[in-house]
């Protein structure tokens, strides 16, 4: 079916808080278990290798009010944190057989603790990814963590996770990463054919299904895009940074793009594009995974980098995609993003790169002030002739 149709179809069920995909998968795989994973990156490869379904649980994206969660988390906690808990408290996550929280930030750490209180009896797995990535002891520590998680996952799955299973799971995720990369290139080259919001929907579709099924969708998309006609050329090509954890609403990207801005690259759903290069398919998979995390994770705001330059990813993206400007889009109350943004802003000012600094919330449904800023930016760039004549 044409890409627009495909997107439409995927979008229809994107934010269904009842997670029908899990039910379908469990029906198709009797006795199968599903593990929820809080953003950004949790060892999904391992979950899949255990024959279980890893599900990215990144909030409810506006489907529900946060009334229960507001009784547990203060209003200065990011929406993804609050709405993820809301899903739990509203009973939407009963289908999950366990929940994983990576050590990305205080919210994730905190939730891992509170979660058990609201979901007694079900395993809550907190995994501490070493922040001191260049310490000699980091690798052995991460391996011990991964092995600890492996044991828990095995006990949930009721079956051991073999090395072969791990390696073939790696292969599946490598495949998906490769397809995503091809789509990224296509988008950067033909934003008028394949928009940022479309690419985003394609990636969102992968949150609740196994990587191989996601890959199938991506392949279909690639086929369709071959002979999709070009739309009208965008007024401005921008990369979007800072939205690596909390999902920006699809509607937000659309209302940005409908004004003639093309989002040619972004860091949303970063977990899907977590590796700089494919996972090794030989040797000790646990060691591969640990080594890969310490060496080959993409630069991001929640893994400390000793060269300590949050702007690396910016420069990289802009060169790769010939972007004109930067859309600094961070979730409200996302500390890691807010810190890095101040550097990115300074970088943009220094090289006089046009930029826009916007804040969003996953639960938002109206984007007037964002649209206002986008339009104002474009009006300013279109250099209305009379400005300055001063009469």
């Amino acid at each position, binding site marked *: 079916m044409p890409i627009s149709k495909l997107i439409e179809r995927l979008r229809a069920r994107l934010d269904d808080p009842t997670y029908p995909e899990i039910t379908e998968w469990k029906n198709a795989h009797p006795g199968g278990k599903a593990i929820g994973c809080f953003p950004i990156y949790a060892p999904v490869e391992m979950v899949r290798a255990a024959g279980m379904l890893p599900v990215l649980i990144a909030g409810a994206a*506006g489907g529900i*009010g*946060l*009334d229960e969660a507001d*009784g547990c988390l*203060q209003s200065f906690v990011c929406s993804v944190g609050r709405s993820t808990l809301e899903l739990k408290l509203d009973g939407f996550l009963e289908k999950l057989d366990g929940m994983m929280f990576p050590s990305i930030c205080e919210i994730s750490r905190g939730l891992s603790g509170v979660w058990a209180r609201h979901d007694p009896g079900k395993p809550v797995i907190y995994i501490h990814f070493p922040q001191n990535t260049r310490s000699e002891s980091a690798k052995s520590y991460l391996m011990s963590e991964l092995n600890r998680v492996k044991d828990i996952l095995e006990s949930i799955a009721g079956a051991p996770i073999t090395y072969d299973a791990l390696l073939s799971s790696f292969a599946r995720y490598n495949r998906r990463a490769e397809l995503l990369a091809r789509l990224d290139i296509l988008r950067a080259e033909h934003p008028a054919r394949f928009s940022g919001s479309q690419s985003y929907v394609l990636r969102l579709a992968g949150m609740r299904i196994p990587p191989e099924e996601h890959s199938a969708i991506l392949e279909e998309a690639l086929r369709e895009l071959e002979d999709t006609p070009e739309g009208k050329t965008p007024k401005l090509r921008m990369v979007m940074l800072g939205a690596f954890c909390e999902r920006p609403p699809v509607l937000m990207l659309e209302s940005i793009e409908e004004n003639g801005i093309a989002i040619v690259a972004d860091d949303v759903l970063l977990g899907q594009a977590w590796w700089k290069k494919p996972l090794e398919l030989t040797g000790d998979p646990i060691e591969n995974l640990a080594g890969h995390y310490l060496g080959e994770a993409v630069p991001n705001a929640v893994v400390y980098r000793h060269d300590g330059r949050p702007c690396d990813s910016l420069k990289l993206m802009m060169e790769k995609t010939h972007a004109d400007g930067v859309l600094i889009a961070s979730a409200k109350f996302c500390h890691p993003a807010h810190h890095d943004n101040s550097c990115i802003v300074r970088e943009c000012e220094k090289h006089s790169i046009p930029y826009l600094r916007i804040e969003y919330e996953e*639960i938002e449904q*109206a984007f007037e002030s964002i649209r206002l800023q986008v339009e104002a930016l474009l009006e300013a760039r279109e250099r209305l002739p009379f400005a300055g004549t001063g009469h």
Partner: protein
Amino acid sequence: MLSCGIDVGSSQTKCVILDGNAIVQGRGLVHSGANLLRAARHALKEALTEAGCEEYDLTIAIGTGYGRFAIPFSHRTATEPSCHARGAAYRYPGTRTVLDAGGQNMTAIRTNAEGAVLDFAMNDKCSAGSGRFLESLTDLLGIPMAQLKEMQPPSEKPLLLTNVCSVLAEQEILNYLEGGKDSEEIVGGVFMALARRGASLLRRVGLEDEITFSGGLSHIRGMAAALSEVLGHSVNSGPDGVYIGALGAALIGLDQVMKRTE
């Protein structure tokens, strides 16, 4: 013997006068405005006239509400939750849980048959001012309060307002207005949003039958309806809900006098 309770709230000032048998003799309700002392006096005057007596007839006067310290003629002050618990337990004897929704704060209170506060939870700092919010909503939408009071929560899926902050909620509403939503829908959405917030506060202290809705918002029919819809449970509420705080204060006054006479 007469006991008087005065509840000086952020937007309204209420007064209730009880006789020795705790029968309501007179009530007063005025806009608080900038001069709380004046407001208290006016409310008291209204109540006195209705009770057909003079200020010196009052055996005791108890003040409550934000402006409770501004009332020179009150002998003692009590906090809102104590008064609302006491008042609610008296007005609706089955009461075990109270939601007091006023101009500034929403408070959920768990109480017992005697109307003592067992536990209470107040709204998050960032969701203060819900009552005032409804007021400002009226001029944002250009519909009078009287009309707002008659409006009902939506039957089908209500508009979802995501902001707890009333300032940002106003912007959200503007976005909806621009999106062509009509006032009915928006007011309904606001009712539901406030009700849901109240419900989650109530759950924080533990829902226990019966539930009584008191304070300034409680006599807005739509709000009460929305609250019981959200809770899926009937809620005591009525036009006199706004007086419950003052009633409680007056009852606490009676207790005082009784103790003294013992």
